[in-house]
Each structure stands twice: as C-alpha cells, then as structure tokens.
C-alpha cells in the first residue's frame, strides 16, 4: 500500500509565497470546490515578487527537466468546459534540468505586470489569475502547483456622472417620475433618489428597487445571458397618492458587486441594472430597468 501511495504522491512539496505576503491585503476567493480561501490581492502594474520553495519528500530524489513559474490570466467559460483562454501568460525559468535532493528556494519576480482584467467569479464565466509552478519530468507527469491571487483595478471617479431621471407610466393609470442621483456608482456607494407619483389610478401595494447583474458570455449565436437579482430593497409600503414623493437611499456596500465589465477579452460582459418594481394589489408588477455603471474606487474600498 505504502508503495502504491508513494507512487502517486508527488515526490516533493511546492510552496509559493509572496515577499510582501504578510502585509498584502488578503481577500476571499471562492474555489471550485465551494470553499472560500483568503488570497493575496494585486492590481495591474504591480510587481509580483515572491519565492518558490521545493521540498522533496524525505529521502526522495526528484529528477527534472527544469522548473518554471508562470503567471496566467485565464478566462474560463463553463459551457465550454475545460477550455481556458489565457489572455496573459508570463514565464520565468527557475531552474535548469537536474536533480533535487533537498529543499530549495527560488525567488521570482514579475515586474509591472499588465493585468487589465479583474478576477471574476460569475455564473457562466470565471476570470482568474494564477501562479503556476511546473517541475517538468521525463516519462512521468510533471509536478504542478497553483497559487491563486486576485486582481482588482481601481478607477478614478468619473468626471461626468449624470443623474438618471425619467418619467414613465401607463397611460391614464400610473405616471411616475424617478430620479437616481448618479448613473455611475462605486462599489460602496449609496444610491440616492426619489420617486415622484404624478398619477396613481391603480392600487399599489409596494415598491422595491432591485439591483440586477446581467452576465453575458460568448458571442454571436453562442451568447449566454444570465441575470441575477442581487438586491431587493423595499422602497415603499402601501399605496401612495398623487403628489407623493418617496425617497430612495440604498447602500451598496452590503451587496457583492463588481465593477461593470464590458466585453472582457471579447469573452464576456457584466452589467448592472437598477430595476424599479411597483406591485399592485393583484400582484401585477410594473417595472422600469435602468443600467448603472459600477466602478471600483480606491478610496472607498
């Protein structure tokens, strides 16, 4: 048994660590197995510096054709299982072919790495960054170790940020005017606004504001669109009368939002919408959806 186990077990342990790992911010990342682990957070143009430690299992000798470390930015589309699109791939050779008898440490550095896209874990798509250490071997499979890390990119507040203001209605039935103070929000922002009832001839029961995420993947005929409602926020309880003005104040921080992603590497987009829903006493729903742009703001995060 021991022999057998030994046969499948990699003959060495590989540890990947970042030089500033202790001080660097850690963020949670959901793995394929559903578990959440804390991983280091980077942004584009950062230097990714660290070391790889290879520690052969006691008494084992590891023969190899070379050791390398790769920094990969991958987009994984679930419906196209197994296919990764590497949009970034950087390689550093760590060792020339040889043998390893004992623990060995290899420093590595990727300087000012261009990482234009953010890590993203969606319904149909995943964008991730990994460090991949490969010990190439002859005849037997390579020994590979991965280390995930997360990339988030910050954008400055937009210089133009108009409010969203609109009058909508059903003729002779319901006329409302709503206003959201901005069209672009950072992730910890607050949506401020109001709904003004110009005409109410139907018996409303309540009104809520939904935050919806629309994730579209693929292109052309193979486009997959997935919409999730991330927040349902009740704005009003009961039936208003004409002239009533209902305030909106929705804090975004409790929700797991990402910035808006537009056409990431021609593979996917993630967009956000505010959906104003009015429900009448017969549970009919009247709604109006407006896109908002989400961005990541350095100060607020």
């Amino acid at each position, binding site marked *: 048994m021991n022999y057998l186990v030994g046969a499948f077990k990699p003959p060495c342990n590989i540890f990947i660590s970042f030089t500033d790992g202790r001080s660097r911010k850690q963020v949670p990342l959901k793995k394929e197995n559903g578990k959440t682990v804390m991983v280091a957070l980077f942004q584009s143009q950062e230097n990714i510096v660290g070391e790889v430690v290879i520690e052969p299992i006691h008494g084992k000798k590891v023969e190899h054709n070379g050791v390398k470390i790769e920094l990969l930015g991958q987009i994984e589309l679930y419906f196209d299982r197994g296919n990764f699109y590497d949009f970034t791939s950087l390689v550093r050779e760590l060792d020339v072919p040889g043998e390893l008898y004992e623990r060995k440490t290899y420093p590595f550095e990727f300087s000012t790495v261009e990482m234009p896209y953010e890590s993203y874990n969606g319904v149909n798509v995943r964008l991730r960054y990994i460090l991949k250490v490969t010990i190439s071997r002859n005849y037997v499979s390579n020994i590979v170790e991965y280390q995930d890390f997360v990339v988030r990119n910050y954008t400055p507040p937009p210089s133009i940020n108009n409010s969203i203001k609109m009058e909508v209605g059903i003729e002779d039935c319901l006329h409302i005017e709503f206003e959201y103070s901005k069209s672009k929000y950072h992730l910890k922002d607050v949506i401020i606004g109001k709904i003004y009832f110009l005409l109410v001839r139907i018996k409303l029961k309540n009104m809520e504001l939904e935050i919806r995420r629309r994730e579209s993947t693929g292109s052309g005929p193979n486009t997959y669109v997935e919409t999730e409602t991330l927040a349902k*926020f*009740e*704005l*009003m*309880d009961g*039936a208003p009368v004409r002239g009533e003005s*209902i305030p909106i104040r929705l804090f975004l921080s409790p929700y797991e939002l990402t910035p808006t992603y537009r056409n990431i590497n021609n593979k996917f987009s993630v967009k956000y919408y505010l959906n104003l829903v009015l429900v009448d006493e017969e549970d009919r729903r009247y709604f109006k959806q407006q896109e908002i742009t989400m961005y990541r703001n350095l100060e607020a995060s």
Partner: protein
Amino acid sequence: MLLIGAEDEEKWLAEGIAGIQHNAFYLHRALDSNNLRDALKYSAQMLSELRTSKLSPQKYYELYMRAFDELRILEMFFKDESKHGVSVVDLYELVQHAGNILPRLYLLCTVGSVYIKSKEAPAKELLQDLVEMCHGVQHPIRGLFLRSYLAQISRDKLLDIGSDYEGDAETVMDAVEFILENFTEMNKLWVRMQLEGPGRVREKREKERSALQELVGKNLHVLSQIEGVDLEIYKETVLPRVLEQVVNCKDDLSQYYLMDCIIQVFPDEYHLQTLEMLLAAFPQVQPTVDIKTVLSPLMDRLSKYAASSADVLTEFLQVEAFTKLSNAIEKVIEMQVDMPAVGAITLYVSLLTFTLRVHPDRLDYVDQVLGACVKKLSSIPKLEDRWATKQLVALLSAPLEKYNDTVTALTLSNYPRVMDHLDNGTNKVMAMVIIESIMKNNTCISTADKVEVLFELIKGLIKDLDGATDELDEEDFKDEQNSVAKLIHMLYNNEPEEMLKIICIVWKHTMAGGPKRLPFTVPSLVFSALRLVRQMQGQEGDIVGEEVPATPKKIFQLLSQMIEALSAVPSPELALRLYLQCAKAANGCDLEYVAYEFFTQVFVLYEEEIANSKAQVTAIHLIIGALQRMNVFNVENRDTLTHKTTGYSARLLKKPDQCRAVYACSHLFWVDGQDGIRDGERVLLCLKRALRIANAAQQMASIARDSSGPLTLFVEILNKYLYYFEKGNKQITAAAIQHLIELINTEMQSDSATSDAFLASTLRYIQFQKQRGGVMGAKFESIKL
C-alpha cells in the same frame, strides 16, 4: 376586502405577538452577548410582524406596543457604544441595509434618536432625514404607527432642542418644523384611511379612524409642550401651518378633531391673540363638520380665561374678541347652509355665554347676538326640533341668569323676537323661567313699559296662543298660573299714577286669559290694586282735583270690571270674596256708594250664582264679617244690607247652619268702637231666633237619633250670650244666661249625652269670671251654676 371576523383577528394578533416574542427572545440573547449583527437581524425580523395588514387599528396597536417595548431595550443597547463597538454614525448606515422598509425605518428611527442625543450630527438634519425617510411607508395604519413611533421616540429630544439650547431660535424652529412635517404627513395618512378598502362599512372605518386620532393629535400636544414655541412662533408658523393642513385635508373627521385639538392643547392666551386666524379656518371646513362642538369650547375657554384677571380682560377688548367671534359665527352659518338650526343656536348660546362673561356691561352685544339668532331663525316660524328648542331656551335663560335682574332682559329688543320662535309649550317653559328668575331675585318691575314688554314675553302663560291645542296638564297649568299671580305682585311702583298704568296693562293682558286663567290672575291683580288704593288713602291729602288720573274711584271702577269678568267665568265664590275686599277698601276710602255697589254685587252673586249650600254658608259668614266692619254706610243703606243678610242667614238649608248664621248676624248690630252701632235689642232678637232654630234642630235630631250636634249649638249660643253680656248689652241679662244654662243641663240629662268639653270649659269660664271679682265678677255673680 372581506369583513374580518373578530375571531380570526384574535388569531392573527396572537400569531403576531408570538412572532414578536420569538424574535425578541433571540434579540435579547444577541444583546446579552453584545452581538450587533444578530441584534439587527432579529430586531428586523421582529419588526416584520408589524407589516401585517390583517389587524384593525386597535389590535395593531397591541402588536405595536409589544414591539415598542422591545425597541426601547434595543435603543439602550445602541446607546452604549462600548457594547457593540460601532459608532453611531456607522450604526445609522448599518440599519438601513435592511431590505424591508418597515423594519428598516423603525430601526432607523431608533438609531436616529440615539444619534440626535449624541449630538454628533446636527439634530436638524437628522430629524429632517427621519421624517423624510418615513415617506416610504404609505400604508395608512402602518405609516401612522411608524410616524407615531418617530414622534414618541424623538419627543424628549425635541423638548430638549426646543427648550434647552440657550433659547436659540433656530433650533426651536428645527424642532417645530420637524413636528409640523410629521404632523402633516400623519394627518394625510389618517385622512387616507377613509378612502381605503371600498368594501368596508363607513361607520366601521370612522370608528377605526377615531381610534387613531390621538396619534395625530399627539404632535400638536408635543408642539404645545415645547417651551420655545412662544406666541410669535405660534402665530407665524405653527398655527398657519396646522390650519393649512386642517383646511386642505377636506376631511370632516380630521377637521373636527384637529380644530378641537388646537383649541384644547394650546394656551388661551395664544388663542386670543390669534383669534382671527383661528376663526378664519372655521368657514372653510367641510359642511359636515360639527363646528358648534368645537367652537363652543373655545368660547367657553376664552370666557373663563377672561375671568382670570383684569389684565386679560383688557386684552380681550384690544383684540375685539367679541366682534371677531361674532363675525366668525355669522360666516360659518352663512357658509354652512345646511347647518341645522340647533347648530346655529348652540353657537349663539356659546357666544352669548362668552359675551356675558367677558362683557357683562355690553347689553348691546347681548342684543346683537340675539338679533343674529333671530335673523338665522327668520326662515323658520316655530322650532320643531327638540334639541334646537332646548338650545334656544338656554340662549334665552343665559341673560336672565347672568344679570339676576330680569329687567335687563326686558330692555333687549330682540329678546321677545327670539321667544317667538319657540313652540307654545316651550314658550311657556321659558316664560316660567323668566318669572322664576324675577321671583328668585325679588326683582321689582316698576315701569309700565317694562311691564308691557314682560307681559309680551310671557304671553304664552297669559293667554291661549294661536293654534294651541295641546292637552294641558292640570297641575302644570296651576303652577303656571300661580306663578303669573305671584308675578303680578312683583310689579310695583310707588307712584300711584305709574302703578295704575301698570295695573291697567296687566289687566289688559290678563283679560284675554279666558275663564281658566282669570281665577288665578284676577285676585292678585285685585289685591295689587287694593294696595294702591290703600296707599293713596294714606296720602289722601295729596290728591287734589279731578285731573289726577289715579283716583280711588277710577281704581274701583277698574276693580269692578275685573271682578265682573271673574264672576262671568263663572267663579262666583271668588268674585264674592273679592267684592267684599273691595267693599272694605271702599269703606276705607269713605266711598259709601262704591261700597254699597260692591255689596249689591255681592248679594246679586249670592242670589244668582251661589247655589251650593255649603258655599252659601261660607258666603254668608264672609258677608257678615265684612258687613260688620263697614262703617261708611248711612243707616238706611246699612239696614238694607243687614236686613238682607239676616234674611239670607235664616234661609239657609240646614238648621245648624241657619242657627250659626243667625247668631253671627247678631254682630251686625253690635260693633265695637267709638261710633259703632249697639242695637242690643236686635242682638237679642238674633240670639233668640238662633235659639229657636237650635231647638228645632234638636227636635229634628232627636227624631233622627242623631248626634249631639244641637247641644253644641246651644253652647255656642251661650257663648254669644256671654260675649254680649260682658260687652254690656243691657238686653242680655244674667237671668237669660241662667236660663240657657239650665236649658242645656236639662237637654244633657235627657239626651244622656256624655259630658261636653266645650260646655265644661264654658262653665269653667263663667266660674272664673265669678271668682275674679271686680265689676265683671259682680256681673257674673247672679249667674248660678
């Protein structure tokens, strides 16, 4: 919506309470372990129970109170940052993450109150934010309770802000603005309840709404408690805003309640100074609003306030409170065309009460009020409505009570015009009230004009009114007429001339009273006239010449008219007595022929009208008594009269009556006094005749085996004998007395009657006189017992 059974409602309430308790349990655990996250979670869940639409306001209130208690605990927890480690600023954001609006806003209000207290942010902004955010709840009941919670939880802070803060006017205004805003919104929600749920019964809805009125009114109460709200702020901000809301909401229940609330919660001083503004709102409210029950307490309060001190009173004059109130009422009545008479009258009653208290010296005001009322009533000839009538009586009674002097009421030109609108029955009641007032205050009405007015007022009692067909209660009628009779005695003037006028006026009025009333009123009037006669008699010297209008002669003429009217009723016995009184008075005035005329009338009456034997007996005795006192007649006249009298006496039906009348007649011939007639012979004649009759009576009695009646007659005659004996009538001798005593004794024995007390004491008297000695003793000496 279906009508909800009470049972189901109970069930839902129980479920709600259970839900609250369940979550409260976990909430407490979270609080104990200082777990803010869980505390927020469970409190939000707990508050979700308040999202129900199934409960009536009362039940919802129960549920609300449960949650409220828990929220107080949560508030304590929020206050203590050391427990949860989150700054109040962050907390304020954190609670807003809740997805459901109702729990969110309850929590926001709770944290908000802690936030204000912490003074980490300007109270003004926080309050504005809270009151603004609460807009999210548009459901009437839930919204009302939420805002009520906001009001309640912020109340002490507001009082602080409004009062503490070094009298900073800004902060006071902040608090005021907040409350006004919250009040306005609450009222809107409250009004909206009326429009909710078309299936529900209107009455039920109104009942439910009434149950919630205090939630709305509470805001006004808090406003009134803020020290910083001075007259200026009240006048410039509070009142206009509140009134605007009241007028604009166009809801009768709300208008009624809120107007009442304003009046009740704010000080009188404010009302006085803002009277115009306040009153201007009244004509603008819905026609269905019961203005009278709102306005009346206002006037009531104001009048009480006016009475509190003299300084205040001058303020009333300065602001012309009366004019304003009066105008306002006029306007209200004008606007509310459909207002029932009772409403209008009630308003006038209040105004009148106000006037009487505040301006007791302004009779013109009182008259003005009455005049306005007349104007309002001009379209209705007689009030049919019982309540309206009642109010009208109150209106008319008020001046009487106030002035303690009915004369004042008599000078009010509109007073009788108002009375005209009462139905006959009430008119009488009112007339009674007037009379009672006069009697109670012992008011003397001393001029003919006033008497005229007075009788005009009480004409309901004086004569049958047009169309009066109502069944009269005998007792009531008697009471009424007795009152009128009493009243007549209250009419008095020292000046004979004026007094005569008064009498004439009264007679003019009472004459119309008809046969039922005359017997009550005429005697009073007669005696009143006789009093005048006697008075004039006293001042005889002053009466000079024929020009003087008030001479006894004239009065006697009038008197005989009166009594004649009375005898025509017919009420002969009463007329007879009155004639006799008049005759006596004429005797006093030395008017022989007048007195004779009266006696003539007496005998005519006796002959023609008095047929009843008992009445005859009484009449005869009265005549004898009166005639005996007359000294004005010459011999001839007197003889005629005495002759008539004795004749009638002897012709009475029953023997004993005859006997008694006859011996009484003896007095006609023996008058004590200086120039009295002392015709001893005729006295004796009478007595002897009486004895004969007594004998006859005794014989008749013995045949019938009757009582000892006749014996009494003998004793009575004996007493007469003794009387004249003592008076010195020579015709009455001791022997005759002796004889009579013996006669009685024999009768006693034969009659075997038991000893007679009357006789015994008579004999004892003789004994006493005998033993007394002196002249009298000597006289009696010869009588042997």
